[in-house]
């Protein structure tokens, strides 16, 4: 599964880690993240993410 990077702040979404702060379990691919999921560091939306 690809890791995705936030182009606004550089935060790296790693599917192996998930996003505990939004209750997203490890193993969740980027595509499977909810549409309204946002970057936990800078709050921008999925559109601002790019595959690493």
């Amino acid at each position, binding site marked *: 599964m690809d890791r995705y990077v936030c182009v606004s702040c550089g935060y790296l979404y790693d599917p192996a880690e998930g996003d505990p702060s939004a209750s997203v379990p490890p193993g969740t691919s980027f595509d499977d993240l909810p549409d309204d999921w946002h970057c936990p560091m*800078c709050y921008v939306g999925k559109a601002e993410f790019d595959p690493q």
Partner: protein
Amino acid sequence: MTRRMSLIDAARERVVVLDGAMGTSIQVARPSPDDFEGKDGCNELLVVTRPDIVRSIHAGFLRVGCDVVETNTFGANGVVLAEYGIADRTEQLNHRAAALARAVASDFSTPAQPRYVLGSVGPGTKLPSLGQISFDALSNAFLPQMRGLLAGGVDAICIETCQDLLQIKAALDAARTAFAESGLSVPLFVSVTIESTGTMLVGSDVQTAVASLWPLGIDVLGLNCATGPSAMKRHVGQLGRTGPELLMAMPNAGLPENVNGEVVYRLSPDEFARWVEGFVREDGVRFVGGCCGTTPAHLGELVRRVAGIIPPRRSAKRPGEVSSLFQAVPLRQVPAPLLIGERTNANGSKEFRDRLLADDLDGMIGVAREQEQGGAHLLDVSVAYVGRDEARDMDRFVSRLVQTNRLPISVDSTDPAVIEKALKLCGGRCLINSINLEDGVGRLDRIAALAKRFGAAVVALAIDEKGMAMTSDRKLEVAERIFHRCVNVHGLAPQDLVFDMLTFTVASGDPSTRKAAIETLDALERFKRRHPEVHTLLGVSNVSFGLKPAARRVLTSVFLHMAVDRGLDQAIVNARSILPLYRIEPIYRGAALRLLNDERDTGDPLAEFMSLFEGIDNSRKADDRASAAIPPDRRLFRMVVDGDQSGLPELLDQLVAGGRDPLGIINTLLIPAMKEVGDLFGSGQMQLPFVLQSAQVMKGAVGHLQKFMEGSSAHQRGTLVLATVKGDVHDIGKNLVEIIVSNNGFGVVNLGTKVEVEEMIKAAQAHRADAIGMSGLLVKSTVVMKENLEEMKRRGLSLPVLLGGAALTRNYVEETLRSVYGPTVHYCQDAFDGLAEMVRIEKPPTGSPAPGSNSALHANPGPSHSAQPVDAGDLVPPRSPRLSIRASGGGDELPAPEVDRAVPVPVPPFLGTKLLDDIPHDEVFALLNETTLFRGQWRYRRGSLPREQYDQLIDNEVRPVLAELTRRAREEGLLRPQAVYGYFRCVARGRTLVLLDEGGGPSILLPFPRRRTAPHLSIADFFRPEGGQTDIVALFAVTVGARSAEEVQRLYKLNRYRDYLHLHGLAVETAEATAEWLHRRVRSELGIAGDDRQGNQAMVRQGYRGSRYSFGYPACPDLELQRPLFALLQPQRAGIHLSETLQMVPEYSVTALVAHHPGARYFDLG
């Protein structure tokens, strides 16, 4: 003599820590004028007058664990001490200083930790590469120093803070002489200073220094001074990749700042030690220490950090390279061969010979330039001509050549005295052409010894007592004899030797030389196989001697290619006349090959070859015709810029004869040309010596035009009185000012060094000067300048004063000194700044203020121009996503969450605000976030591209842009990180942060909203509440300067959209990086940087203690808070203003509030 392990052996076991600053430590001890015996600034005298001070400085470093102390002898050489009139005391002072250091070191020495003494040898004040002192005079000035240090018992000698490779060679020579005299010898350390330009003062970069110094048999090579460790890092990295086994690094404690007359070095012991630890772990440096501004605290921290580290082993294989002052050139080129330009040779080139006989130095330099432009990698220089003084001619030509030409030199002479003369003029590594056994070993030994002494490489010819070796076997026999003599008797290394198996013409018709090419190439191939590390050379043009020029060109070129295939590394050629094989018709190529291989089956190959060239035009090169077509005006301009004087008088005469007014020539051609030179220097495209060369052409031109302007002198635009201030002997900067300013039409009165203000005033009055220029290298000269200005003010003077000096900052001059003297004192970063000021003084300023608000940048510029790979919809510059303003938060009705309010309050280094206007670019750029820059701002997204393709795009298209823009930022000030920051006492009153004034009363109120959903956090919760101990908050504002905004606007108006996007994006990201930089500094100053996590995501995920909040961001969206922040910080001092709509101008600015609380994280208002 060593009871203890030698310093070199110690370094092979562990990291060796040298001490910190002597000069700045002495200043802290505040010796009195009597201590200097009236010789202000002569620190070395203190060893005799105040040994207690020197002893205590040494002890201070030894006490914190330094292994090595350096003697207080930095300026104790004959040149510098002569300026104080005490050159005769050189040896004595060095002896005393060494003995003193030795005694203190012995007091601290234990069997477990022996302590060592390093003899410090500074560079002196005269640069031999610029012709300011001869090699011999300089070496003689170092000799008593070396003797004294040795006699005083040093464990090693360090030739440090070097600015000029030739200076280093002179010092090494003196050291070796002292060793031979005394029978003692100690390890030799050499440490060069790389300025913020990336090179040594005279223009040598790290690679060039390595190539030039490694062959000299030194034990340790390193870097010291100029900058702090962060700016030194990339040079240390370079050294680590390509340098010898044992390396040294001694950075300053950052850059000096002048704070109310006190000199302050900013870098904390912790930061300093962390960087230097990195040099050890990552670059394999084994000798570390500190230079200016480093105290026992810094070194103590360093000792602690490097204890027990075993640095990575470094392989150290010295490559075969030669060098000029400006570049290193491998002797083995890929693709082969290395081309040695043959035309700067009185015997080989009629043109060069004619110019030599006419003493036309400029013309001779012109020939060299042509060879360089034609692609030569090295220049073979031979000036021997019967009836002339070869030594004198070599001296005159090479002195000029080293300053004006980038190529390394092959010294072509059979006279050892002439070779020695040439080697004493070259800081770079030369090739000596050549040695042979024609007269037995006598002359060979003398020249090989010179090669060893000066670290040169040598060409060996296959000639012995029986004559030139014609057959392959004979050539090998001679070459082997020479090889063994050089390697086993003289200690040269195989890669220092270049073997020439001799080339004879195959075109003479003489049957005995028909196989000459075959024999030569056979010997070459066999010798190379036996000794793979040696290099091989041929003077290939000889193979075609006797043929017509067109035929020669073909035969020589084909022979060259054949030889390269058989192992040839280097060729002496006329670089312009070599043809690549594909440019030679097959029929010519075939005939040439048959001739070279002596294939006689179809007849005489020579006759066949020659017949192909009947009737071919052999006229002059087209190049000669081309240069005559350039209009004389343009040619004169280019000659000044190129520093090319050949044919100057004729050109000027031609212009005047054609009706041009001499004064007009000066004002409309020469002066603008010098301005171009200034711009090229300022943008880093021209090296210092080349600037001087241009100035020389200027001077020559003006001088020549004088006779056409009978009586009336050239219009003098103004007069500048120049001086280095009292107590300072450094005059390089000042003299550059004189050269540049005087060659731009101004009169200059140069008063020299150590000048009292009284003398400056008198001279200004006598010459009716328009300005006084004061220069000084030393940090304390900045204080002297202040005193001078105070005196001038007392006398009621207000004429403009220009100040220059390495330790000056713009801020010190424009803030502190202007408040002393008034607005007419100006900071000059270099000679061209000085010139600009003189021009401004000449004409009153007429410029209008910079463009104001950048609202145009936020409007949609429309789709009319889309030539760039940015489609019309993307022309709106990306609004920084971080400025997205969320809904406002809740108020006092919401309950505060539980936050530990008892966290200890850090002690800030000061209260109130500070302006930082000299933030090092490198440190900021090191914090650039490439993801957000490349993908966010610049929009280079990977999307669905395969990973490799995207990586290639980044490497080929994107990184070069970044490199160029950061270069321009550094060199042109295109981006100039600046900041205002401060620490304030504060308390929390509910959700409002109350900043307190000195009296403890409330001064500024910053109300922060609460999260609407639990936990109902507000930024104020991270601070101690009212009623108990007060807390500390830091506030800051950073910017990258107005220039970037102006330039972005300009690019946009020119429809250069890609450039516009790039610069805008970089400016935004650099502002962010500057904010990161400053945040780190704050954490460091508050002592909470220990919690900083390392690694990729550390910065992004707040891998540090505390948090910084910028107004307008999720946790505090209300921009109104910018008002009180601006009132408090006064960021206008850094050029940041607040618009009516609370936007910052320039837009590339960031403000923030820093909380130290461990629980402080980013949050939104829920």
